[in-house]
């Protein structure tokens, strides 16, 4: 009897705490949506900030984030996929593979601000790129490299070994097997990883503080050596500076909502994709 009561109490606590936490997390979302929804308009998305950031929109920040996403993917995607292919399809030496795996594992634990320090030291100063889209993209690219590698490796390992042995038995070389058989099968999963990486990159602030971010650009960047505005940094700036915080607040809410929207949509897309692939795999 006592244990029954105990169980009821414990379960009640868990259930209510569980609901509380879920509620809390959705409160945050709801709060931003509630305050930000009224601000979002076509004009907000497609015009530049005006009147000392108290009016206008976030177009240059959106574009800047786009550039950074593209730039960092150009860095991370080929490098990540290639090294994942190497470790899971090519490397025979277990020690090297283990070393790379340990390295990437630890790399993913390094705080993003440390990447910012590193990017500033190597790309901005040592290589002389200055504050630029190039430096920012390289820094962000390295930041998501472990993520790309891990998802690609998982994707490759999900390809049944019989596919490989079958292909090799038919006389295909290792590279033919990888490029014609393994990669096409793993491709959707690799793309899912890529999308996740895009989501991560579009929300990061700390690594771009010293490598690319600009407070205000009246024009869109025209070269990879230009600075760019970016959504997360823009939110940070308009949340903490500006001459008239009261007037800027709505814009901050709007920016936060757009940022969340972008990141959540990207992640949702990856989720859906993953689920569809999962279903397909079960059928076959």
């Amino acid at each position, binding site marked *: 009897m006592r244990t029954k009561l105990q169980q009821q109490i414990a379960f009640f606590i868990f259930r209510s705490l569980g609901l509380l936490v879920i509620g809390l997390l959705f409160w945050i979302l709801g709060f931003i949506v509630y305050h930000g929804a009224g601000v979002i308009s076509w004009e907000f998305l497609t015009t530049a900030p*005006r*009147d*000392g*950031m108290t009016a206008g929109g976030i177009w240059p920040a959106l574009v800047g984030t786009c550039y950074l996403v*593209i*730039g960092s993917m*150009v860095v991370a995607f080929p490098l990540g996929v290639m090294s994942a292919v190497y470790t899971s399809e090519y490397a025979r030496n277990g020690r090297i593979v283990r070393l790379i795996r340990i390295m990437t594992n630890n790399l993913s634990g390094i705080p993003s601000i440390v990447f910012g320090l590193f990017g500033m030291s190597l790309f901005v*100063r040592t290589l002389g790129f*200055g*504050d630029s889209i190039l430096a920012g993209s390289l820094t962000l690219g390295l930041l998501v490299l472990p993520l790309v590698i891990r998802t690609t490796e998982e994707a490759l390992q999900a390809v049944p070994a019989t596919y490989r042995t079958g292909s090799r038995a038919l006389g295909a070389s290792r590279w033919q097997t990888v490029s014609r058989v393994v990669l096409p099968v793993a491709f959707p999963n690799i793309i899912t990883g890529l999308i996740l990486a895009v989501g991560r990159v579009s929300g990061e602030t700390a690594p771009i503080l010293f490598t690319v*971010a*600009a*407070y*205000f*650009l*009246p*024009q869109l960047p*025209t*070269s*990879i*050596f*230009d*600075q760019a505005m970016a959504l997360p940094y823009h939110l940070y*700036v308009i*949340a*903490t*500076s*500006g*001459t*008239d*915080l*009261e007037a*800027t607040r709505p814009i901050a809410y709007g920016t936060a909502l757009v940022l969340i929207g972008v990141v959540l949509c990207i992640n949702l897309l990856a989720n859906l994709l993953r689920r569809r692939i999962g279903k397909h795999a079960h059928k076959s």
Partner: protein
Amino acid sequence: MKTIILFVTAFTLSVLTLSAQRIKGSDTVLPLSQQEAETYLKQNPTASITVTGGGSGVGIAALLSGTTDIAQSSRKIKFDEREKLKAAGKAAKEIIIAYDALAVVIHPDNKVDGLTREQLADIFMGKITNWKEVGGTDLRIVPYSRETSSGTYEFFKESVMKNKNYMNGIMSMPATGAIIQSVSQTKGSIGYVGLAYLNTSVKALKISYDGGKSYTEPSVANAKNESYPIVRPLYYYYEAKSEATVKPFVDYVLSSAGQLIVSEIGFITVR
């Protein structure tokens, strides 16, 4: 895939084009530079200007490393910064574009109306810790400061604290807007902001630099007639060699149209 290739080509092609005119430095000057750039670009749609903040020290360091064309600063260039520039073979040209009065702000419910320079210095050095010591209610004083980078931090230290250091572990805010926000929310708070940032959510103190004989409130008029003591010039620094590129913009800032923006934002015009 096609779009990616397109973007990449666009990137590489555009590397060849000239980079923009860059203004970097003080967050205090930032809104001014930004507005000036906005209107200037309306008249000269072909020009290109980037404005970034980070602090006066950042701007001057960037001038030294050649990553900016104009350094905006809310303090005079330091002796050793000038020496460093000289050592790098650069000569910095100095232009005063506006003046700014620093207002000392407190929570609107606070009864204290004015403070002397000495009292202010003691508060920020941590020697006075309760409002009742300066004629207020029994409430802990919470001083808010800017981050160490800002010219505002340095100027306040020089002018009010006579170069003494701030108390250990003062609350430091990354930007002036954050100071206004915190001061308006915190009962015992005190902070300093540029006149341009002043709004109704905080209360500006009258200041006395003559030991309490006369108190003046911060306003554009009082700053202009020099009765308000905490006033500083705002500067643009640029390398003498790049004068030709930056001159049109600097001239615009100093023109009557540019100075109109100065007073609209809440700074004090040069003339």
